[in-house]
């Protein structure tokens, strides 16, 4: 069965058949007593429910064709991503959620509209079919980069608390004391992006290009899209994590630029 644009439509029966693959995986889990069959079943059910719901919501948003609806979706996506970062970076100081939200809003808005407005040149500027998926990729990668960079920065600063004390006692500024941790964290945050850029097209066919090929697109039309997407997500990852770390590292320092060790933080005094 073919749909618009040469896409082979997957019907309910085919979807049920795909579920059979997960049943096979679940059977393996039971046979090997891995103890994850229940989680597997719940995760699979969530995938069905969340993606079908996403399809419905996107269909509704596409139908509205309203810039406010698109901007509203972007703000909600950014908010959820900021909350996710706060959960995944437990060593980061209080206030990280707000700063992550701000960093992703700035980076997400800038990169999304540079891509849709200047590179893809969509008309109108808010065309939901382009803006929402591209913003999703930008925010998703930015979220991963920020969470990793924040977690590494603050856990490394805690591990280096003796060194930071020695440096500040020698007259170091907060930046001079924190910079080794920040550099290590930023390198760690950038490496997955660099690896993905290096391996693209050799080790794997990236997701967007694979999706376009499955949708019947010409490979030479799909490749430039994928290149733009990969450059876009690497930029989102790096700029988002840089901005978030630069806006948060000083929160680990109190009045008089004193590094707040675990015992001296308000959140450790309960």
């Amino acid at each position: 069965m073919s749909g618009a644009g040469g896409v082979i439509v997957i019907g309910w029966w085919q979807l049920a058949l795909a579920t059979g693959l997960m049943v096979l995986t679940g059977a393996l889990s039971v046979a090997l007593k891995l103890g994850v069959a229940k989680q597997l079943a719940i995760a699979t059910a969530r995938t069905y429910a969340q993606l079908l719901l996403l399809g419905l919501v996107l269909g509704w948003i596409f139908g509205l064709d309203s810039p406010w609806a698109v901007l509203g979706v972007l703000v909600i996506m950014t908010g959820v991503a900021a909350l996710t970062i706060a959960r995944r970076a437990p060593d980061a100081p209080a206030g990280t959620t707000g700063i992550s939200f701000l960093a992703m809003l700035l980076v997400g808005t800038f990169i999304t509209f540079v891509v849709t407005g200047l590179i893809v040149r969509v008309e109108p500027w808010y065309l939901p079919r382009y803006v929402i998926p591209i913003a999703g990729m930008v925010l998703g990668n930015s979220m991963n980069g920020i969470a990793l960079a924040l977690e590494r920065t603050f856990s490394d600063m805690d591990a280096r608390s003796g060194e930071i004390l020695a440096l500040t006692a020698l007259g170091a500024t907060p930046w001079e004391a924190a910079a080794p941790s920040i550099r290590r964290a930023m390198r760690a945050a950038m490496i997955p992006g660099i690896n993905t850029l290096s391996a693209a097209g050799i080790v794997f066919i990236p997701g967007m290009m694979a999706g376009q090929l499955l949708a019947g697109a010409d490979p030479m039309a799909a490749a430039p899209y994928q290149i733009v997407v990969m450059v876009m997500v690497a930029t989102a990852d790096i700029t988002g994590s840089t901005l978030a770390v630069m806006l948060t590292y000083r929160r680990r320092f109190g009045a008089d630029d004193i590094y707040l060790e675990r015992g001296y933080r308000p959140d450790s005094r309960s």
Partner: protein
Amino acid sequence: MTENPNVPVLCATGVSAIVAGDAGDFRVLDGVSLEVDAGEIVDITGSSGCGKTTLLRALARLLPGAVGTLSLRGVSAHDLTPQAWRAAVALLPQKPTMVAGTVRENLLLPWTLKVRAQQSAPEDAVLRAALDGLHLSDVSLERDTDRLSVGQQARIALLRILMTNPSVLMLDEPDANLDDASAAQVTQATSQFASAGGAVIRVRHQRTDALASRRFSMCGGQLTETTS
């Protein structure tokens, strides 16, 4: 900074601090006042956990939430940036900390900081002579600090701070983990610093010597002078 010979190098008045303890918040420093003159060595003793280290951190403006009045040669701490204060009132923490790299990189670390941007870093010959002076002739400037013993690290950390020529040197149990020979070298270096006009505050727990001109005991968050 304009020097006034009639005022103490370091003057602390009413220094107090509250920290979190197992049984709730408690006042670890309770209105401590202390003056130290140029060329003077002052020792502070007391039981473990009585607040000696906390006092040194407060004097170095490195204690969150500490209150009180501090001045350096009559200049209020408010008139100096925290970095300028710490460059002049130097704290050597009890645990010697080396950054990853060579002995040379560690000795030159203070001159990589903005607070000493206007000063020129010492040459290799000066570093070598300083190491020899603390009986570290067998330690090359190129040696990785991972290959130093605790005693060598403690002396290099002391040297690193001495070479910055601070006004006040605060040593937190400087010879706690040292053998007698290394401890004697640290004592000698401290004495030379004071002889050159530096003020020294030492927190001591184990060894005693005759260097200090005044001794204080710390108890209940307060300092009591024991001899003069």
